[in-house]
């Protein structure tokens, strides 16, 4: 790996922390409703755990809404940025929770929306069969012998869908982060938001798209 590439990876890991910060701020400003072009709008909010840090100092918050209290914003104002945060996503009627790490964009404790098999299982089917007088013994023996890979495929499919949403959010974030709008608009808004000042969410939404806010 070239030195330049190593530098691009190692010297800019803070971008992951800024992604988490941006997601946190937007989820608050837009009342837990975010959107991407391909996914439309979906529920997105922080939950359970938020870890902020800077060098040797760190703040760990465990709460139902860990980003909502002043403690989290005060940590930001002391120079800490999110290191990992618990997230809940509600998309197309399915709820997913996970913790997203900033530096390696690693996923921890991803709880997928209940899989069909887990909902239905074989029990109700067995019961229906039993009631209708069918014997399930032979079928069950066959199931033991053959390994059913469908739960694996289902889990990976759902995992990839969650990742797809996170990647789409990252793409939108990166478009802003690498544009002059970041320093002109996003960063100052973040500071005001962290200070607890009122932020006009709609004006922010319009401005980040490069549009003037509509007059009300």
């Amino acid at each position, binding site marked *: 790996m070239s030195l330049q590439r190593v530098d691009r990876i190692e010297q800019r890991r803070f971008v992951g922390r800024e992604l988490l910060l941006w997601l946190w701020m937007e989820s608050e400003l837009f009342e837990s409703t975010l959107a991407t072009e391909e996914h439309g709008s979906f529920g997105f909010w922080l939950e359970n755990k938020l870890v902020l840090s800077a060098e040797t100092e760190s703040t760990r918050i465990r709460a139902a809404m860990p980003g909502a209290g002043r403690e989290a914003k005060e940590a930001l104002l002391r*120079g800490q940025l999110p290191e990992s945060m618990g997230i809940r996503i509600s998309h197309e009627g399915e709820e997913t929770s996970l913790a997203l790490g900033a530096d390696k964009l690693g996923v921890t404790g991803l709880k997928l929306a209940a899989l069909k098999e887990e909902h239905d299982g074989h029990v109700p089917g067995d019961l229906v069969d039993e009631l209708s007088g069918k014997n399930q013994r032979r079928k069950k023996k066959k199931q033991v012998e053959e390994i059913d890979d469908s739960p694996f495929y289902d889990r990976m499919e759902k995992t990839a869908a969650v990742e797809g949403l996170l990647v789409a959010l990252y793409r939108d974030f990166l478009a802003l982060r690498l544009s002059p709008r970041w320093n002109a608009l996003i960063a100052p808004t973040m500071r005001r938001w962290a200070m607890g000042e009122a932020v006009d969410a709609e004006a922010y939404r319009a401005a980040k798209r490069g549009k003037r806010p509509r007059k009300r």
Partner: protein
Amino acid sequence: MPALSGSLSYARFFVPEKLPRGFFDRSLEKIRHRAMRPLEASDPAPERAGWCVMGDPLDLSLPRERIFLDGWVNLGLRIDRWAIPGPLFKSKLREAEAKYLEKKGRERLGRRERAELKEVVTGELRKKLVPTTRALDLTWAVEDGLVRFFSHSEKPTGIMLDLFKATFGIELVPESPFTLGERLGLDEDALVAWDELEPTVIARPSR
């Protein structure tokens, strides 16, 4: 937090190159060459790692149908380690030292003698103990060139990266904000902007 059940905790890695035709036909043998060989008491190594069937650390036969699923390569990374409890080792070593000194009619041990006794005691204790076994899942989505490794710990990750390279000849690229951006297609201007990025400061200015 395995791939097959419960909640999932994993790190993402990417295959940085296009795979040649017939790559996976040649891979099965290579995987089997790197299958886990359980630790024996007589082995000098304190730790060993190798592939096993994903979700079944005791299955080291690695049948094709358990590894190659439609579009996926699934493997378990099994790591065995001798973990001798410190207090047990110390007390057995003291016993052995006392016996040795009594036999030799001396009061002190030389440095080499002590090292040799340590080896003897370690070997004896290993015969009575069972190594600890850890198995971690790895799934490779071939089409996407994406490997999900179900651990965030540094040591097993390092072992996995080495074993993966030794098996497949591929140096995996760990996910990071830059690599993800790169895959999303950073153009020249974006790369220049990336190189010039400075951290965003939210902190109150110090007085």
